[in-house]
């Protein structure tokens, strides 16, 4: 992974000192909460319902074991013993004290981490494919490009006061595990007409009140032009994006109101002016960063292991886990392992300090010392040898991290909701737990196959409900928390926005409603191979409406 230079370290130290000064001025009353707000929001510190919330950046979802141990230490020393992995591959702490935050940032800086640009109207942490570098369907590893974007966007002097926040996602694979279509900018590495790799550039995707799928603004961008092109998009957005209405300020509205063709021309015109500037990436600039992401020294191994295969046959529990939570690796003899953060005992994405420490140890022992976070709020050990799968599973099971549900019904994305969030209008975690408890049955989950349920506790859609196969949106209607159902969304390469099926359900009805939706699917699917999404797209809303509303 990327190793900080002396200058990277220096920048973090300066930033911590600057923030320490701001916190001191706030604690002494020299800064009002309103004045301080602008400073803390530059550093990932939100004021939530009960306390401050600190969001720590995990650049493109990649963590070393040492970094994970620091996250555990922070959870233990400054918080209530746990952290929450978010849909943006970051981690959030819900209970830090303001006076502790500079010390937390110090501890983070010691392991090359920070909270820079995890909030505010600036370019946020770049997200990516959690299987980057190990996926079989990869065209090229996206992480070097993510790192270049990280450096370019960190304290960018022109783009720190944008109309609204700005999120960039990069994938290098055929299958989209980074949801690039619902980001302000989505980059997808492809092989171009010249045989070289470059990017498809999607602009103007996003969720929130006005969900939109990104438009393909450029079919092929040579990779050397990545940063100049991004700069052109950001400059046009900074100048023309709406600032009169908070809810119309994202770039998706600018693209929509300007029109795709005209928007494309604006970008191209600006880009022509700057494409040959110092931001142009020379081959050696890209190669140097690629050097940080070289393949590890994989062993030459057969793609078979007797212990693993024997246990598959003899232990159904192991078989279930292996079927759901293990994925193919590009290297023979290795597997990708998903750590489910969706057990019935914990809110989605929550991990205790003890679990974090144990995960760090497992990464050291079995997976070359690295951990990845996913936008569906799980973790990944990306380089596990076949022979280690059995002992790894036993340890994960003891840690309650082996629920066999990856990309299945109970692998629910949920925002923190009204239990924590100042914006939320309804609770989401209790709904997700109620669904998980009701359907905590492997055979049922397995039979349903590939399926996503996402829950947001308000219209801002942090739980990505629009792009779930089954989306749940909590709203407050005349003092009562009610839940709207949307069906047919997808965040993958076939991205689509789900449609509201009808009137909302009460908190006591929503789980039954989900059961009804699943029942309609099971009754109507052509065969078990037809996924929920495919069946829904074929059937349309009618049979679901009929069942739900009669």
């Amino acid at each position, binding site marked *: 992974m990327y190793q900080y230079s002396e200058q990277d370290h*220096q920048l973090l130290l300066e930033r911590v000192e600057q923030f320490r000064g701001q916190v001191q001025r706030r604690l002494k009353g020299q800064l009002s909460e309103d004045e301080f707000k602008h400073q803390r929001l530059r550093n990932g510190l939100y004021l939530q319902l009960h306390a401050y919330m600190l969001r720590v950046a995990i650049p493109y979802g990649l963590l070393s074991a040492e970094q994970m141990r620091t996250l555990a230490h922070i959870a233990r020393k400054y918080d209530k013993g746990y952290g929450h992995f978010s849909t943006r591959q970051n981690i959030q702490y819900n209970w830090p004290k303001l006076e502790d935050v500079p010390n937390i940032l110090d501890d983070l800086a010691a392991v090359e981490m920070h909270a820079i640009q995890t909030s505010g109207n600036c370019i946020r942490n770049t997200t990516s494919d959690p299987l980057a570098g190990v996926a079989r369907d990869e065209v090229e590893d996206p992480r070097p490009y993510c790192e270049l974007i990280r*450096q370019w*966007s960190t304290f960018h*002097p*022109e783009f720190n*006061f944008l109309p609204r926040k700005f999120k960039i996602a990069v994938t290098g694979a055929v299958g989209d595990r980074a949801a690039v279509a619902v980001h302000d900018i989505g980059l997808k590495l492809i092989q171009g007409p010249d045989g070289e790799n470059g990017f498809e550039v999607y602009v103007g995707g996003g969720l929130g009140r006005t969900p939109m799928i990104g438009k393909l603004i450029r079919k092929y961008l040579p990779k050397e032009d990545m940063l100049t092109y991004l700069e052109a998009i950001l400059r046009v957005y*900074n100048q023309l994006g709406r600032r009169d209405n908070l809810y119309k300020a994202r770039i998706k509205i600018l693209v929509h109101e300007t029109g795709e063709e005209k928007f494309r021309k604006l970008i191209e015109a600006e880009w022509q002016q700057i494409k040959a500037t*110092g*931001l142009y990436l*020379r081959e050696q600039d890209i190669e140097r960063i690629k050097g940080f992401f070289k393949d590890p020294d994989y062993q030459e191994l057969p793609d078979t292991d007797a212990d693993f295969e024997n246990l598959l046959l003899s232990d159904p529990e192991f078989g279930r886990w292996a079927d759901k939570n293990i994925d193919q690796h590009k290297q023979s003899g290795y597997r990708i392992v998903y750590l489910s953060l969706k057990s019935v005992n914990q809110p989605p994405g929550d991990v205790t300090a003890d679990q974090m420490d144990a995960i760090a140890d497992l990464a050291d022992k079995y997976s070359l010392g690295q951990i990845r976070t996913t936008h569906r709020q799980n973790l990944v050990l990306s380089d596990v040898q076949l022979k280690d799968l059995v002992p790894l599973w036993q340890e994960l099971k003891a840690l309650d991290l082996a629920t066999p549900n990856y990309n299945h019904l109970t692998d629910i994305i949920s925002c923190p909701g009204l239990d924590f969030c100042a914006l939320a209008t309804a609770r989401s975690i209790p709904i997700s737990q109620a669904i998980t408890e009701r359907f905590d049955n492997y055979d049922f989950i397995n039979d349903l196959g590939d399926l996503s349920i996402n829950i947001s506790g308000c219209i801002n859609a942090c739980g990505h409900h629009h792009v779930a196969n089954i989306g749940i949106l909590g709203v407050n209607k005349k003092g009562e928390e009610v839940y709207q159902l949307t069906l047919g969304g997808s965040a993958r390469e076939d991205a689509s926005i789900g449609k509201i099926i009808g009137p909302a359900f009460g908190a006591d009805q929503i789980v039954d409603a989900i059961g009804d939706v699943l029942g309609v699917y099971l009754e109507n699917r052509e065969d078990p191979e037809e996924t929920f999404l495919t069946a829904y797209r074929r059937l349309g809303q009618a049979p679901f409406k009929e069942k739900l509303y009669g």
Partner: protein
Amino acid sequence: MGNYIKDRKPDTDEWMPFSGLEDSDTLPAGDIYVPLEEWLKNREALLTRNSRLGVLLNNTDDPAALVPDLDRLDLVVLEFPKMADGRAFSQARLLRERYGFTGDIRATGDVLHDQLFYMQRCGINAFELGEGEDLTSSLKAFDEMTITYQPAADEEFPIWRRDGK
């Protein structure tokens, strides 16, 4: 009047804003700056004076409108109507980097401590500090951070291409 910084030092603001000939029969003496609209309308008359001229750009004005006249101007004033409004950062970079303006670029409006570093990087060298902003502490803001990753008005190359790399 608020505090004024130019080229990282406290300075006296010698410029007067002048709204235009519509509101006044005669042109004032001394260094004045006028809104872009006034400049485009009364350029010739304004140029008959013997003192320095500047132009104020609104956030929606395209700096390209000044390109034919940049060598006749000593000052461009950019507005920061509120802290969150960052359009003038782009205007400043365009003036410096694309159009090669070498006169003063001044920030006016909600000009606060924590923006000064970014403003300076975008090519702004004169600052009418916002109300209540402390001069001494503001002067330190330029050096709070010393590492810059990306090209801007102060750096032609990103960090990975500097020092002959």
